[in-house]
């Protein structure tokens, strides 16, 4: 019994990481209808950036966020201004193809620079520290931190979207690009800010991913898939839904892994398929009129 409580708890905590993967993806799709195929690879890129920062400066992974987050945000802004804005239009295909190309470039670029060896960020004692909740149930400090950070990220994004001028600009531009420009909003700049915000979240997700487990240049697409699944499970357009989607995915994977270690990924995909079949609009869809 207690081991199942443990399993579910671990699943919930890992779900926070998946919610981080998904939040940036969801944000970009919501604001500019761009499906970023390179999202997973950008997460891995952030992990390698953190690796370089920690090795060069001799700081811990969590401290490295001070550099990695603004750096990734700057990369996001430039990427949107210089490349992705040119692909946006009535047709959904060009941005899809360009981000797919970007995905290939990032993977091969990382392979060239860092080889295919698995790497990991060392966070020190915090990695093995645990808290005993009650007899037989323990949670790791790091997964708990990761979950809390995910919760804070979603809450912060929710705040930005619905309580600030920037969020208003995001929502207005998503509603109608032409009318938003009539209000004096430069949509190229608004989109670039959205991508910067997305990659700031990606940076945090990348660092937590790299501390949690080994990574190599090829693991991006699977993270993209987890992100997609979390977004769809939660319902398009809802940030808290995305968070719930990540948790559902995490719990399903943890339960699968507990039954048979080979079933971890499969169980996640099955949960996704079941929800897609039973509730194709997701758990908490935002009705758009």
């Amino acid at each position: 019994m207690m081991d199942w409580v443990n399993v579910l708890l671990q699943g919930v905590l890992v779900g926070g990481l998946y919610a981080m993967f998904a939040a940036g993806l969801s944000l970009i799709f919501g604001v500019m209808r761009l499906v970023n195929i390179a999202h997973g690879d950008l997460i891995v890129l952030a992990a390698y950036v953190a690796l370089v920062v920690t090795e060069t400066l001799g700081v811990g992974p969590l401290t490295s966020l001070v550099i990695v987050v603004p750096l990734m945000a700057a990369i996001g802004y430039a990427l949107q201004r210089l490349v992705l804005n040119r692909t946006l239009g009535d047709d959904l295909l060009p941005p899809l193809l360009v981000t797919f190309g970007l995905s290939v470039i990032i993977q091969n670029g990382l392979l060239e620079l860092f080889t295919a060896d698995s790497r990991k960020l060392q966070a020190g004692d915090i990695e093995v520290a645990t808290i005993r909740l009650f007899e037989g149930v323990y949670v790791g400090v790091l997964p708990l931190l990761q979950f809390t950070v995910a919760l804070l990220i979603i809450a912060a994004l929710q705040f930005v979207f619905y309580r600030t001028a920037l969020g208003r600009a995001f929502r207005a531009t998503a509603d109608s690009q032409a009318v938003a420009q009539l209000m004096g909003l430069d949509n190229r700049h608004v989109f670039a800010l959205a991508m910067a915000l997305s990659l700031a979240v990606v940076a945090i997700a990348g660092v937590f991913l790299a501390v949690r487990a080994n990574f190599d240049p090829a693991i991006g697409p699977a993270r993209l898939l987890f992100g997609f699944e979390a977004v769809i499970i939660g319902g398009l357009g809802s940030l808290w839904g995305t968070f719930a989607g990540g948790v559902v995915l995490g719990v399903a994977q943890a339960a699968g892994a507990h039954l048979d270690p080979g079933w971890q990924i499969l169980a996640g995909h099955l949960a996704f398929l079941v929800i897609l079949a039973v509730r194709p609009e997701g758990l908490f869809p935002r009705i758009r009129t």
Partner: protein
Amino acid sequence: MSSEPPLLAVQGLNAFYGDFQALFGLSMDLRAGEAVAVIGANGAGKSTLLKSIAGLLRAAPDAIVFNGTRIGGLPVHAVAARGIAFVPEGRGLFASLSVEENLLIGGQLKRTGPWNLQSVYKLFPVLAERRHMPSTALSGGQQQMVAIARGLMSNPKLLLCDEISLGLAPIVVRDIYARLPAIVNEGISLVLVEQDVVQALKATQRVYCLQEGRVALTGAAKDLTREVIAAAYFGM
């Protein structure tokens, strides 16, 4: 007529939709504080003229001079920043924003002037009551009020209104038109594109009547007779 340069001067404006030419060397001007109506049949080029001024359609730099600077071909947001607000046909409200958020987006350029949330709510009191409702939950007339108020929020020098009477009951149209003098009195110049010729003539000092992308008739609103307008309207 004063000798000071016009606030807006459109000179030899050509506009195209792909290969189709909608405006042919059109010229018009507008002095500061003036209200001008642009009338004409469907497809005469009225909306095209406004879209060209607002930057939504390509125009030669010289073709549109606003406040002494050439604005033809500038990006839409840059035109807005210079003080031209456009109330688009069909209102173009942001569906996922509340009434007040729509107004705040209108004011995000932070140009200074008499218009702010308080003063637009004074102009359209019904909007104050519904400020937190989704903009789509309002009646057509109220939505049109939001669109006009949103345009005012940027404290423009020039307000372009495209078919504000479209799809509204006559009593609602009269109600909205009754507020226009208050706007012009605050020093804003106005270009009204209208199908409703009677309303347009009452609200403005001068009229341009377009026909097939050219100015067919222009003159002071009070001097133009029905017959003259009908002739210019239908090209008879």
